[in-house]
């Protein structure tokens, strides 16, 4: 089985997975950057705009309202965006593999017994479910 996996690593769709990995990383970093700006910016805002931060909104100091209540739903939105985009990237990669598998490029190594063939069916199923 180990040897089979080493073959997989050499197989041309390793390249597809590497591309997928880079796209996932870029997506993760993008969402993380928004989050870091929000959570890292707030202490600076509090430090340099103490009067704005203390403005009363419905009785709450503005910065308390933001940190104690509003910050949670903001992170839910960021997470939901990430999960949706990340699933999309993965499904695209999966269908790219499926396409290549249907028409192997010249020189490609033969498909492994039981590997991609068996899984292309399960992918079709999960693709519909999503």
């Amino acid at each position: 089985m180990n040897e089979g996996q080493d073959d997989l690593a050499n197989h041309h769709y390793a390249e597809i997975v590497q591309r997928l990995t880079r796209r996932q990383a870029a997506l993760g970093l993008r969402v993380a950057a928004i989050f870091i700006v929000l959570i890292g910016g707030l202490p600076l805002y509090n430090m340099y705009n103490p009067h704005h931060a203390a403005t009363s909104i419905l009785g709450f100091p503005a910065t308390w309202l933001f940190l104690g209540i509003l910050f949670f739903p903001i992170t839910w939105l960021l997470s939901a965006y990430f999960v949706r985009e990340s699933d999309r990237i993965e499904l695209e990669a999966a269908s790219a593999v499926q396409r290549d598998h249907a028409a192997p490029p010249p020189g490609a190594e033969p498909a492994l017994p039981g590997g991609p063939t068996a899984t292309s069916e399960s992918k079709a199923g999960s693709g519909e479910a999503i």
Partner: protein
Amino acid sequence: MTGVNWIALAFVIVTILATIGLGIYATGMAKSASDFFVAGRGVNVFWNASAISGEYLSAASFMGIAGLIMKNGYDALWYPVGYATGYLFLLLFIAGPLRRFGAYTIPDFAEGRFNSPWMRKIAVIVVLLIGFFYTMPQMKAAGVTLGAILAWPYWAGIVVVGAVITFNVALGGMKGITFVQGFQYWLKVFAISVPIFILCSVFGGYNSTLGAALDEPKEVPRVDRDTPLQFKGKVSAPANAVSFSSVGPTTLLFPKGAHILKVSPVRKPQPGEAPMPAQDYPSTGTLPDGSNGYVIPPGGAYTARPWTVVKDGKPVMKDGWPLLTAPKIEFYDPTAAILKEGALAPNAPPNGKWIAPFGPMTSKYDNPLLYTYSLIIALVCGTAGLPHILVRFYTNPDGRSAKRTTLWVMVLIGVFYLFPAVWGVLGRANLPAMYANNSTDLAVIKLPTALPNKLLGQILSGITSAGAFAAFMSTFSGLLVSMSSALAHDIYGKMIRPHATSDERTAAFKVSAVLLGAIAILLGLRIESFDIAMLVGWAFAIAAASYFPLLLLGSWWRGLTRHGAAAGMLVGGLLSLGAIACTMFADLKWITLDVSPFVRTLMEQPAIWGVPLSIATMVIVSLATQGALPKDVDTKMLRLHAPEELGLSKNYIEH
């Protein structure tokens, strides 16, 4: 502290019995060793998210945050925010790859990623380190909660609760717990939310209570009736200290007299400043151990008066006002006292400092911004490195459901974390006596008893006590499972007896659970004076500087070698642990730390240097040892990131 709250006791007993009952019921389903470790790997997304949330919402979340917000105000809001939003990093960078790699535990990941059995040993050490740090606050919560409900001594609560949970874990394993954890999440949400709505309808709302504090920045909460207080003795230092308010004079009556170890100004005098006025000292006398101190006769009183700090004959000004300070006294032995109606609550910061950022918690060592950022880094990165949470990601069927589960966890715990702050705010306004007793960690248990309707108060207090029990039972169980798994599965099953049968492994798990439970109880007995949420924060700081870099770089950087990973984990984890241990020993007055405020801040909140140091060590050592890359590193990277459809995923352990 008067008598036993029978209603609360009934609620607690029902919670314990329900937990054990569910555990026993579920044991019928836990058959093979694989069931014990990761619950058969087929738990659906919503139930698994409930279980992760149930396990995650510990005593720190249920009691500690409310207490810390009551004590320190705005700054403590970073705790719930960090605890909840740390899952974002877990989601973005770790949840999917970790599940796709398909290992049972973090030590499995550490070994599998580098083909290196000794990485497993290092990872196990870190599991135990973080685990013990995290169990200490759970133990404290058990001790103080039972103390409040039953008037039991601190140690008794710890021993009873610790023994019950240890027994339950040894009996049921994790399948029982997945089931019980999910149930406990819903119990905890109910227990933190429903009582506070009722309390708000009596005491006033979240926003109006905050608004009142915002309008009176110089005011300190006052007790609204004659309030009996019970101070601790010097064995509980630093919890034996009372800092009086600098807003006005405060009188304490001592019906049975008092022995006072030390009287000093709250604000440490700077060179050149006049000392504390002589008339503010109580009369000197001999303490029971023969040393010199201060003695107040039975029925006597002590009045603490603020005074203006004077330097070189001129008042010291701060923000345009003369700077005031007040006395702080430290008791020799447990002492009963009465705070008269209308008295300012000792130990309570004034409204303006409490409600605004950079208050007493982060400004303690004059570097509030540094303290805040370091705390944020610890909480956000630490969440992504907690062993008892990470192990649950293997119960997802695939990487995609692991991400969905994380999203649901963020929603479930985010909803929960809206409430502790309300408790803290209402606790400050309505039960300020808790400041004087250094017992703000009991805000959620005690606040309902301040209701005019005593029966309703006891019922609500019973509900929150049940929630608190659910909290420390579930987290302690989860920790005990991951620590026992580390010993039984990683040490016994992989190193000592690789060919052990399923029965032998299960027996090893049970023995490990009992052993570790006993150690956790002993540790818990030592830490009564620390804030629950602070202790958990430290466990996060250690996780952030050890596991988080391992998982982050291990999942995303092909070039990470076992030497780099091991060096980074050990350097980051152990140095953070050392800094935190020094802080704790200094707080307990076992050692004195003579360092600058800047260094002191970095020691109390080490994540800001610990995390980068760990990552940098990993990168540098890895670059120097590229020859040690596993031969199949490309396959491993593929397996971490390839969607299941590509057929690369293969569980590290087959069953």
